[in-house]
């Protein structure tokens, strides 16, 4: 990394590493978002009835939300009838307590996990660690993120900010049995992950998952995935615990015919994802627990404009078309929900008490690309505008203004510094207009100590 800052004096390379990394991140993000975007467009274009599916998807979700209490009770009955146990959690702490209690009851201290945004949202892994339980992530990307002691940056490709040589380093460092001659060839890295996790899958007694959908009528849970780690977790362990947001509900079995078309095509841009697992209650001798999570969702539901965010099926299509996300990166949104959906969901789930959260509704140029891409037609710009009106105005303004003073200036300097790094010449982000620039900048710059940067700059300016 530091070689790209050839000729720069003193400790700047160290200080600026973060910024360079951000440029790498921007490059990776651009590649990822544009690739997936293209694939999505072609498979969506294949279906002559895409708009009809989208209209149905939107209406099914709205109807479900309108009758959420009734359908949740029906779901509880269906799951219970099929031998599962249903738990209800008002908030993150309660959900974590329930899950920790269930794991402890099995006598186990290790669990395997399938990527789940709900469990990230409630920071389940940390809560379990505090109870002496180790949770192992099993998605390749989540594994990279977890082993690298890092945070996910994209809903669908959470490790998109890491390149192959970084991943190799992480594996060499953290996987006990990995051979020293491991190359950074993607198939070799995938093979290393396969071997690393195989043993764990076969011996694990408890697994924790989320779900993409739950069907009230039948009690069926549905998980879509690509790698097969989901199937491993859902199938092999004796006890399965699924933590699912209450809005993931669909009323009828038939409704899956809509969402199993909308989600894979919007998400990975495939006609169908490699694996989808469906199970109803306790199957093949397993013990099954479902933890239904509120954690702010009922507050969102109470907002007439904002409640449409609960239709979200976490496909990440809105991230891939968003010009702001492409430049700012997933970490900038300060929550597990990045991109346009994060900009409307996080402030509603967490409230706009913090300046970060109050500034999120400004993380958009209101171009409307997200709405066009959204398979359940969430009018994200409409919610953003509504949230801006509701944001504690002075706080939001301050979030912009306070940083604007020195950051706006320093941002320009940073941009020029990056231009100086020849390898990254093409990667310099364009400045975003208006209040947005302040927002974008806040996320990138504070990592760099103000003084040393200035020192460096002033010396170079004179040189």
């Amino acid at each position, binding site marked *: 990394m530091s070689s790209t800052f050839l000729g720069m004096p003193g400790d700047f390379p160290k200080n600026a590493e973060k910024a360079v990394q951000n440029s790498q991140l921007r490059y990776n993000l651009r*590649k990822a978002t544009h*690739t*997936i975007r293209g694939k999505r467009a072609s498979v969506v274009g294949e279906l002559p*009835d895409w708009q*009809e599916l989208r*209209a*149905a998807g939107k*209406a099914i979700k709205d*109807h479900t*939300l*309108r*009758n*959420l*209490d009734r359908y949740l*009770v029906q779901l509880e009955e269906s799951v219970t009838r099929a031998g599962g146990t249903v738990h*209800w959690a*008002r908030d993150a702490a309660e959900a974590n307590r329930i899950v920790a209690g269930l794991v402890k009851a099995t006598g186990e201290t290790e669990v395997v996990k399938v990527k789940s945004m709900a469990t990230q949202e409630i920071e389940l892994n940390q809560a379990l660690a505090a109870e002496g339980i180790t949770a192992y992530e099993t*998605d*390749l990307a989540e594994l*990279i993120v977890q082993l690298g002691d890092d945070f996910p940056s994209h809903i669908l490709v*959470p*490790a998109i900010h890491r*390149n*192959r040589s970084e*991943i190799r380093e992480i594996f060499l460092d953290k996987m006990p049995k990995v051979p020293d001659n491991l190359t950074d060839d*993607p198939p070799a890295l*995938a093979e290393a992950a*396969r071997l690393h996790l*195989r043993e764990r899958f076969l011996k694990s007694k408890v697994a924790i998952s989320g779900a993409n959908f739950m069907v009230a009528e*039948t009690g069926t849970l549905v998980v879509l995935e*690509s*790698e*097969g*780690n989901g*199937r*491993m977790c859902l*199938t*092999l362990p004796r006890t399965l615990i699924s933590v699912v947001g*209450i809005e993931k509900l669909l009323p009828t*079995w038939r409704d*899956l*015919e809509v969402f*199993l078309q909308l989600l894979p095509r919007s998400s*990975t841009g*495939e*006609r*169908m*994802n*490699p*694996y*989808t*697992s*469906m*199970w*109803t209650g306790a*199957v093949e001798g397993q013990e099954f627990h479902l933890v239904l999570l509120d954690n702010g969702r*009922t*507050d969102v*539901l109470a907002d*007439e404009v904002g409640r449409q965010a609960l239709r979200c099926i976490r496909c990440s299509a809105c991230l891939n078309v968003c010009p702001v996300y492409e430049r700012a990166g997933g970490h900038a949104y300060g929550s597990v929900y990045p991109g346009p959906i994060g900009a409307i969901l996080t402030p509603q789930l967490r409230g706009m008490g913090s300046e970060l959260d109050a500034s999120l509704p400004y993380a958009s140029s209101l171009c409307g690309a997200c709405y066009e891409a959204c398979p359940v037609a969430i009018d994200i710009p409409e919610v953003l505008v509504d949230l801006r009106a509701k944001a504690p105005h002075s706080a939001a303004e301050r979030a912009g203004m306070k940083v604007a003073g020195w950051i706006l200036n320093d941002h320009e300097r940073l941009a020029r510094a990056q231009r100086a790094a020849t390898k990254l010449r093409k990667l310099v982000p364009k400045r975003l207009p208006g209040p947005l620039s302040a927002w974008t900048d806040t996320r990138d710059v504070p990592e760099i100590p103000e003084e040393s940067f200035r020192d460096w700059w002033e010396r170079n300016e004179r040189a």
Partner: protein
Amino acid sequence: MSARDEILARIGKAVAGAEDVEIPRHYRTTQQADDLVGLFAERVDDYRAIVHVLPAAEVPAKIDELVAGRRMIRPDGDGWDDLNTADGVVTTCAVAIAETGTIVLDHGPGQGTRAQTLVPDYHVCVVRADQIVSCVPEAVARLAPARPLTWISGPSATSDIELNRVEGVHGPRTLEVIIST
């Protein structure tokens, strides 16, 4: 108040007075296709799975050829029984979807447990032509929700490393589909 009652009460309050919504279902629930077998074969092939289209009478010989020299699990018979050291598994399926190139297992007779089609690295699946439906809605209508279901569209894959598609992380790295006509 229990968490359950409290959440239900919050929902009731949140949606009070909101209007209900009609669900328009103007999308296709079936699809005209002259050659379902051909379309299915083409779409499975798109996922880089291996496809054979054969008359029913030739299927047994094909299976013998494919499994020769391998320790194969036979879901209903006497095959290899240690999942982790088996080389592969041969199964039938419940439904197949032409438009998406998907096979669906409901783990009924001939399809083994969920683990049997997951742990071994090689999966041979025999699909009868009359099990192929045109599109997703037709498949959903044919399936029984009470059974555990596994929808398979090509071999296990990941694009997590710099967005390069790599076949096979945890599930079978080779999927071979025999369509019996």
